[in-house]
């Protein structure tokens, strides 16, 4: 991928000429490439300046709307948009719209198998790629009260049975003992069947192996989007990247034969 080609794509993006899948792919690239991100920022700032303004342009607002529609699986107005969407998606037939990105975990032919504590098992790439062996680490969860104070260890999965978190806490997920680079995702399915994607919330979820612990993305505020109840936790570790087109291929997480549930979180008020 040449620098010239990248810059052309970035200019197209800023002009609002990229389709949703291309834009998603580009943003995943920008998450990890400081050079392209710098050029992109410069383009956007220049476009804003051309208006003699510091505010975002109408094109930026339209692009954000298009991205949201793509992530939420919604058509643009004037097309066949549904006007009676349920309050929350019900598993297994529909994923919670805000977690359409969870669909990247499950793609036709894809297989995500996970096992803890260094036990090896076969995995298939998400797009039905070659069989690969990935030694996965264990999933840990820590929590801290919204008011501050010490961090507490919630649990290490699997083996923890049912662990408890409060809606007054922020919960941080992480991995231990991942022995090979992999593409990781952590998701939960609540009592109502809604899928919550905890990691990744941007980028491709690629993790490099570490000896100790690695935090997975941002801490999660369980006061937002979660009701008190039970959340089934799923961990996905794959040796192949999750393609951005999969974000529009909605599949129920646990319908996949090789997805693995690692534990349960009880969410309390």
């Amino acid at each position, binding site marked *: 991928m040449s620098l010239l080609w990248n810059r052309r794509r970035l200019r197209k993006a800023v002009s609002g000429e990229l389709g949703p899948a291309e834009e998603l792919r580009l943003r995943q690239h920008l998450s990890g490439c400081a050079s392209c991100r710098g050029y992109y920022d410069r383009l956007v700032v220049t476009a804003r*300046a*051309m208006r003699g303004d510091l505010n975002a342009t109408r094109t930026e607002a339209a692009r954000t709307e298009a991205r949201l529609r793509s992530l939420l699986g919604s058509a643009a107005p004037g097309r066949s948009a549904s*006007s009676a969407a349920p309050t929350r998606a019900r598993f297994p037939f529909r994923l919670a719209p805000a977690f359409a990105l969870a669909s990247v975990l499950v793609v036709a032919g894809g297989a995500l198998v996970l096992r803890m504590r260094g036990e090896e098992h076969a995995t298939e790439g998400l797009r039905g790629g070659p069989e690969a062996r990935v030694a996965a680490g264990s999933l840990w969860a820590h929590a801290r009260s919204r008011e501050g104070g010490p961090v507490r260890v919630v649990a290490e999965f699997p083996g923890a049975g049912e662990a408890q978190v409060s809606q007054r806490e922020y919960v941080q997920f992480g991995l231990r003992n991942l022995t090979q680079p992999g593409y990781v995702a952590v998701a939960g399915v609540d009592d109502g069947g809604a899928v919550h994607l905890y990691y990744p919330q941007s980028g491709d979820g690629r993790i490099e192996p570490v000896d100790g612990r690695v935090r997975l993305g941002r801490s999660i505020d369980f006061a937002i989007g979660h009701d008190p109840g039970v959340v089934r936790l799923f961990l996905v570790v794959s040796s192949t990247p999750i393609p951005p087109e999969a974000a529009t291929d909605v599949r129920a997480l646990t319908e996949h034969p090789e997805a693995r549930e690692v534990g349960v979180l009880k969410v309390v008020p």
Partner: protein
Amino acid sequence: MRERQRNTDAPPDVVPAFVRGDTDAFFEVYRLHEGAIRRVAQRVFDGPFEQEEAVQEIWLTVHRSCHTFDPARGSLSGWLRAVAINKVRELLRAKGREPAADLDLDEAPDEALKLDGPGPEKAAQLSRIRAAVTQFARGLPAEEARVLELALVEELSLEEVAQALSSTVRRCKYLKKKLLVRAVTDPGLQRVLEELLPEGGR
């Protein structure tokens, strides 16, 4: 062209649909409040990419938690701002950063987030930018100067620009891209815009 601050929370029939999770209602709310939410992100994050990611995360959180909004307890705009501020804090913490000491997100009233009346520093910055853009535009061929005015300043669609210039959409698209390349490589203009970029992008 300045963005007008919208004072309308949402049409009465939209709010119940929004709370139910109706997608059309969600995007109606998005269009009404996207400017205000974006300003929260722009206050905290330096670079456009970071701002865009934050805005996207905020609206996804709004969508996930729309059923928690209770109109009897407050305005939609107030609720949206609370969600945005919480999300911004979460994003900053995840990056190992804290909000700047002079940025009081909790206490900042809605008016403080408006950019209708920029403070002295912003006004001076705007003045420098406008002068640089005027200087840049003076060096353009007539056709490109018109495209700059119509497509980039007034943000008309390419079809409208082509009609105004009695030209083709293809030509206008080409000229708009050429303008952007010229602008992003113009030393005088970029010197002024440096202060708007995050440090890593300079």
